[in-house]
């Protein structure tokens, strides 16, 4: 892009510590979309130390500066299941089961990918390791504006999809010439490590053993000791993941393919949240239907986003497509904010504008639900990190 419409006004340091050193201030806007609550017009929100202290139409506090703004203020949006930001650093291909791995050690808080998300009003992104392992370790949740990582929500990443077998191809009989031979070097230079399994049943047994080993990391999945991120794609895989979750009373999120909607009721029963797969040109019909089904069944869900490969606007576009398929405006918005937060068990911290939650805001020049609305400012943890120079507030009275 040549003249980017957005300029970032960033504090000198991104260090997480900075977030808490914010002074207090009050934002006053024409319309304040609290999220699952009412729309206050006008509305005020008191921010203290990067956290929302008070919300209402008559909020006031002593010697606290009031910033009057025009437009619509909403909570920041949440992107789920991004595997691209961590990159190879997040993927350890040497073990098939590696619960000890922690993505945060491979995470670069300064990556420009975060900035692009931030410009699009996405203030929180859930990162999952791009690994083909059965158990790839703990993912992480990061704030796009600051790179701050949320202590909660480092889910254990367990695979149920065929992705984990990609290094064990079908050796067309006489396989030397067949796929098998090329896999000798692996699909992308990778090398098939020992300990890998090549089949669903094989992987399933390995998982069972791991979970049943007393005192192991994995055993904490049972009964929701630690949250799980269950990666699946086809309906069969999703239902296997569900069976696993039910069997061991696992808490967490299930990443599922476009047709997950057909399993909505079972998922509702399992108490898991859903991360809906990235929308592709070929699957919106199923994906959007699924969104409607999940909403109907009352399953919290959000959208996945591959930030490096896809325009961050995908997130809003996905929601828009769901609207077309009949998803209500409120449910569509929910999927972008606190629905997604619930899906990853962070509904206490983010997703709405309510006291006690992180001060992640987006200021729009119109209804946040409309693609035609422009993002003017973005705050993360109470700090304004984006200001759109194109429409300076001065212009509007």
């Amino acid at each position, binding site marked *: 892009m040549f003249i980017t*419409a957005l300029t970032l006004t960033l504090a000198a340091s991104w260090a997480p510590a900075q977030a808490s050193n914010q002074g207090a201030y009050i934002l006053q806007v024409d319309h304040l979309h609290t999220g699952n609550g009412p729309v206050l017009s006008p509305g005020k929100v008191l921010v203290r130390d990067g956290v929302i202290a008070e919300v209402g139409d008559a909020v006031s506090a002593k010697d606290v500066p009031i910033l009057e703004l025009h437009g619509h203020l909403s909570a920041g949006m949440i992107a789920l299941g991004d595997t691209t930001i961590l990159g190879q650093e997040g993927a350890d291909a040497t073990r098939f089961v590696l619960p000890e791995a922690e993505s945060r050690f491979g995470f670069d808080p300064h990556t420009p990918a975060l900035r692009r998300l931030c410009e699009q009003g996405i203030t929180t992104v859930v990162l999952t390791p791009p690994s083909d392992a059965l158990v790839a370790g703990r993912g992480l949740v990061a704030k796009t504006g600051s790179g701050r990582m949320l202590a909660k929500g480092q889910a254990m990443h367990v695979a149920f999809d065929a992705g984990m077998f990609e290094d064990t191809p079908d050796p067309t009989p006489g396989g030397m010439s067949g796929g098998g031979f090329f896999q000798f070097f692996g699909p992308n230079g990778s090398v098939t490590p020992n300990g890998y399994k090549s089949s669903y049943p094989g992987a399933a047994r390995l998982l069972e053993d791991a979970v049943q080993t007393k005192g192991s990391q994995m055993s904490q999945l049972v009964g929701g000791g630690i949250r799980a991120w269950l990666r699946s794609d086809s309906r069969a895989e999703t239902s296997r993941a569900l069976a696993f979750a039910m069997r061991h009373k696992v808490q967490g999120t299930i990443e599922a393919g476009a047709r997950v909607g057909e399993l909505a009721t079972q998922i509702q029963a399992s108490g898991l949240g859903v991360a809906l797969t990235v929308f592709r040109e070929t699957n919106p019909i199923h994906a959007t239907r699924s969104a409607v089904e999940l909403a109907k069944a009352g399953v919290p869900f959000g959208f996945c986003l591959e930030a490096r490969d896809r325009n961050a606007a995908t997130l809003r576009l996905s929601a828009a497509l769901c609207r077309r398929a009949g998803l209500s405006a409120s449910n569509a918005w929910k999927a972008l904010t606190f629905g997604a937060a619930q899906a990853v068990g962070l509904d206490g911290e983010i997703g709405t504008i309510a006291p006690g939650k992180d001060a992640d805001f987006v200021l729009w020049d119109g209804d946040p639900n409309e693609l035609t609305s*422009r993002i003017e400012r973005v705050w993360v943890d109470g700090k304004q990190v984006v200001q759109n120079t194109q429409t300076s507030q001065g212009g509007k009275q």
Partner: protein
Amino acid sequence: MRFSLLRLSVLLALGLASPPTSAWSQTADASQNREALDPVVLGSVPTASAQEGEEKKPDAQDGQGEDKPKQDAKDGEGKDGDKEAKDKEAKDKDDKEAKDKSKKDNDKKDNDKKDKEEEPLEPLVLTELPGPVLFLKGERVIVRPGKVLENAQVLVRGGRIQNVGTDLVAPEGARVIEGKVICAAFLDPWSTLGVDVQSLRDGSGDASLQPMDAIDLYEPSWRRERALRAGVTLVESHVAINSGFSGTGVMLSTNPDLHDPEQAVVLKRTAMWARLERAGDVISRIEEVDNLVGKLKSGEDYLQSWSSYETKYTEWQKEITELQEKLEKDFKKAQKDREKDKEKADKDGKEFKEKRYKEPKPPRKPRFDADKEALGHVARGEMPLVVMATRAAVLRNLIEATSDFPALRLIIAGGDQAMHVAPLLVARNIPVMVWPADPLADGEAPVETSGTLSLAGDLARAGVSVLIGSGEGGSSDALPLYAALAVGYGMPEDHALAAITTRVAQAFDAQSEVGQVRRGRRAELLVMDGDPLSVGTQVQFVVSGGEVVVEPKE
């Protein structure tokens, strides 16, 4: 005459056209006059006559002056006198638009000028064509971006819009459809729908290629159906997108029930498509531009050489006929001379030799070359040239290199770095077709292009005319969403809507046929329950080719 017959025949055999409505021969006959082309290319002769009346105007009326090709100078005037229009305009602006003045600037000017021109709208006399009679009533009828009629009606008969007004009554037996908002159906200026994939990816195409033989309307039709339901009734498609020249494109209907290209294709020639940046390194990229320009030149020369041959040939014939007359006249004498010579020869005992005979040779006929022919007409501006390019350097190079073709009508497709050359684009009235690095496209879209909808906003504010297409990775059914997103990036709302309606029509010389809710136009209409670019809006009815092709789903 024989030679032209040959020429035509070859054209015909090349599939460029069929004799009666041979595309090129048309252009030849109706030299320079492009309007005259539309009726022919678009079929439906009856309406042609009806349009003559207003045909002169549309360029001038259909707003967005700055993006007109140079030919239509009219625009320039008229504009200045429109200042006072602003305040009057302000009144009938609804609150939504009020939100942002800057968004309206472009189109305001033309609007009331049109108001004058369009009143009164006496019904268009149409010879009855097949197709139902529809009477659409809308709270708001968006005649064209920026021009709205409150509580207006649209009368559709025989596949065409017969009349638009605020006081029309439904004729006997007309089907009456009521809705909140009525507007022209969306046009995707750059899609891949409806052509067979292999031909689409073909890298061996050239200027003479025509997609008619590659249109495949039997393939699973769900993509077209989705586009139609989203209100995109017509899309521009062409083949051989990986070739230097892809040949001309067509505009075809997304109605999945149509399987015969003859029915589905409403515009047989939209534009010539070319692609740059196929090469990896800078040098060969410069070479590519040179080639493109060189080919245009040779096309021009080619047409020249034909016309000069024609003249030479007629001259030669004249000469020969005279010669022949003379010879016939002198035949008696010649006979005598011959007798004499014979006798003389006998006497001298020499054997008799005939006189040597010489005559002027006929001029050499140029070798027929369909590609050059096609490019010649492009160079003459009889059809726009859409060039797919993204790099700033390439764009600048291209724009400068093509400056010695005054008639050439250039359109940039892609243009990721077009902001670098924005002033040039404005100066030369070169529109840019922007496509989203499609968020829904399979596979990875390079990150640099992932902002191209903000590019739409930037270009628009810089005064460049922007078209929005689904492009090579996008999906037509998301077209209105792309436009909406572009607004979110600061593109004036009317401009965004125009980018998928009127401006598309203009770019492909179809402004007299599609893109607006105006009498005489093809009936490509949408009835919806809200603002065209609003996410919550559901398209209730889609009228295409004068028929209701989408009904509200229960």
